[in-house]
Structures are given as structure tokens and as C-alpha cells.
């Protein structure tokens, strides 16, 4: 697979290049210290993957992705963990490596890349309405916590926060129901009330204007009841 490295930091470029030599089937065809030069290169050349720094002066990694009509797979490299959530809004982004990049973590990213290549996943630079992966990263106390989306059974609005309930734990996150709803697969999750989004696969029973999910009885507003009933496999 042919790859590009784009990073304004010379040590970072050298390190990614070195990491590429540690794995099979990756050929570094070019390195760039800024995104503009890389765009010029991509106008007349194609690559399979780009290792892209997010934090670059004047033209960020995200700006770069938005300029590409048919971007290849992108693996982001950054010293900043805070962009992980934004990063996965782009379906071409397949992984997010935090510097200093460790060899084992790099190899995992390449394994992931190979899986994407084998499955023939399509690329799309437009922000996707649904996450490209099964994981959701939430920012809690400056840490990005990974949540397996199918494990979420209920999300409850609590003022400026939302409470995400999963099989194994609960998380309080500074966000809104609208925002998290946009990150979740619409065939799995449904807003049944202004304060609740539920995983419809986890419903135990429905009675009048409420649903039972695990031990939680969740109200269903009149305006959402029709959509909920449509989603159910009724006998």
C-alpha cells in the first residue's frame, strides 16, 4: 500500500517513516511538511493511505480532509487526544494515533487498515451521519473513554449533561441528546421522549406510554409513540 506522511514536525515524519518500515506492505511514497503541498501532489497522484497530523499551522488536518473529493484512508497522528470524537465524523478516518506513537499501537492501526482494504470500504470526505465504527469516545475528566455502542441501552438528558447507561457502567458527559443521537446508528437508537434516547433492541416490554429497558421505566411521548411502534417487529 502506498502512503503519504503529512506533518509539520520533522521528527514526527521521521518516526512515522520508521514505523512504516517496521510493517509489511507499506511504502512511503512522499512526505510533506504542509497540507497545501500534499494537495498539489494528490491532484496528479493516488495513494492508499495518508498519515496526517491534525495540528498544523494555517491549514489543519481536518481542513485538508475537507478539500479532498475522494480521500484515501486516513490515519490521524496527533499530540492532542481531544479531537478523537471529531476525527471519527469522517468516514475516511480509520484510526487515531496519539504521539508519541508506539510500535504496537501503530501495528494495530495497520491491521485495521488491511481489514478496511480487504472489505473494500468506500471513502467519503463528507461528515457521516453515523459513526464508521462501533465505538463512541466520550470526554470525561480530560480522558477519552471508549464505549461500545451496542452496549448502550439508555441515554438520559440531565441539564447540560447526558447520562449514558451501558451494560457495565454509567457515564455522565457534558453534551446534548441531539449531539449524541447524531453519532448513533439510527436503526438501533430512537428518541422516545425529549429527555430519553433508547436502544430499541434492549426493550423488555411496552405498556401504555412507557417502555421498560433493564430496570428503567422510560416515558414515551405521544409524538414519538408512532415512530416507536413502526420500528417494532409486531406480530
Amino acid at each position, binding site marked *: 500500500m502506498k502512503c503519504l506522511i503529512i506533518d509539520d514536525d*520533522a*521528527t*514526527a515524519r*521521521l*518516526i512515522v517513516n520508521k514505523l512504516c518500515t*517496521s510493517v509489511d506492505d507499506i511504502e512511503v511514497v512522499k512526505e510533506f511538511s504542509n497540507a497545501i503541498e500534499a494537495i498539489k501532489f494528490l491532484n496528479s497522484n493516488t495513494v492508499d493511505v495518508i498519515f496526517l497530523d491534525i495540528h498544523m*499551522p494555517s491549514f489543519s488536518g481536518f481542513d485538508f480532509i475537507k478539500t479532498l473529493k475522494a480521500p484515501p484512508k486516513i490515519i490521524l497522528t496527533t*499530540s492532542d487526544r481531544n479531537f478523537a470524537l471529531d476525527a471519527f465524523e469522517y468516514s475516511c478516518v480509520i484510526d487515531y494515533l496519539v*504521539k*508519541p506513537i508506539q510500535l504496537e499501537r501503530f501495528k494495530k492501526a495497520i491491521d485495521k487498515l488491511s481489514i478496511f482494504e480487504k472489505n473494500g470500504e468506500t471513502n467519503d470526505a463528507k461528515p457521516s451521519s453515523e459513526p464508521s465504527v462501533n465505538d463512541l469516545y466520550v470526554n470525561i475528566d480530560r480522558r477519552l473513554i471508549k464505549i461500545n455502542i451496542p452496549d448502550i441501552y439508555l441515554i438520559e438528558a440531565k441539564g447540560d449533561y447526558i447520562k449514558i447507561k451501558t451494560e457495565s457502567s454509567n457515564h455522565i458527559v457534558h453534551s446534548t441528546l441531539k449531539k449524541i443521537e447524531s453519532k448513533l446508528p439510527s436503526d438501533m437508537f430512537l428518541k422516545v421522549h425529549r429527555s430519553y434516547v433508547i436502544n430499541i433492541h434492549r426493550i423488555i416490554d411496552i405498556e401504555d406510554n412507557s417502555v421498560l429497558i433493564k430496570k428503567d421505566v422510560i416515558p414515551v411521548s405521544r409524538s414519538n409513540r408512532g415512530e416507536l411502534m413502526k420500528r417494532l417487529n409486531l406480530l
Partner: protein
Amino acid sequence: MMEKPNKLYLKQLSDGDIVFENQIISIIKKEFPVEVLEYQNSINTSNFLKTAENVHKLKHKISILGLEKGYQLASKFEKELKSGMKIQQISFEKILNEISVYLNTI
């Protein structure tokens, strides 16, 4: 006790490739003093956002030199600067000083 700059991360990556190690050290020796000067100019003029950018750039070198706590402190300082504060300034500058001394010994 304050952690010391080291080549542990580089050694892990290089897998014995001395040329690679020397290339990285050579770039750091060349760029680090320049980046420190840029940082000093920014903080002396209280340009906090610019200083945050300078710290961001420096923190990658801090991490390459194996300073895990130093990297965390730099991340905290960068965040502070974006909020118009500089509580970690002295501690951060101690790290820069440690690295300067170390680079003169290798």
C-alpha cells in the same frame, strides 16, 4: 525526583538502527533551541495563544525524550494557556532546562 530525558522511546523504535536515532537527535538538537526561543518570545509578550502553540510543538519533543510526566505537564500547561493562565510556567521551564542540559551531553 524529577524524571530525566532519555532515549528509551527512541531505542524501542529504532530496534538498533543507530542512523535513525542520530537523525532524530540531530533534528531535536537543531530545532529545540529555536522552539524554546519562540516560546520565550511568546510568553514574554503574554501572547497566550501563540505560547500554547509553542508548547504544543515542544511537547512532542518532550515525549520523544521519554519524559512522560513532562509531557502530561506540558499538555496541562497548553490547556491553561488557552484559558489565559500560566500556572505551570515555572515547572514547564524546568523541563525545558533539563532537556537543554541533556542535549549538550549527547
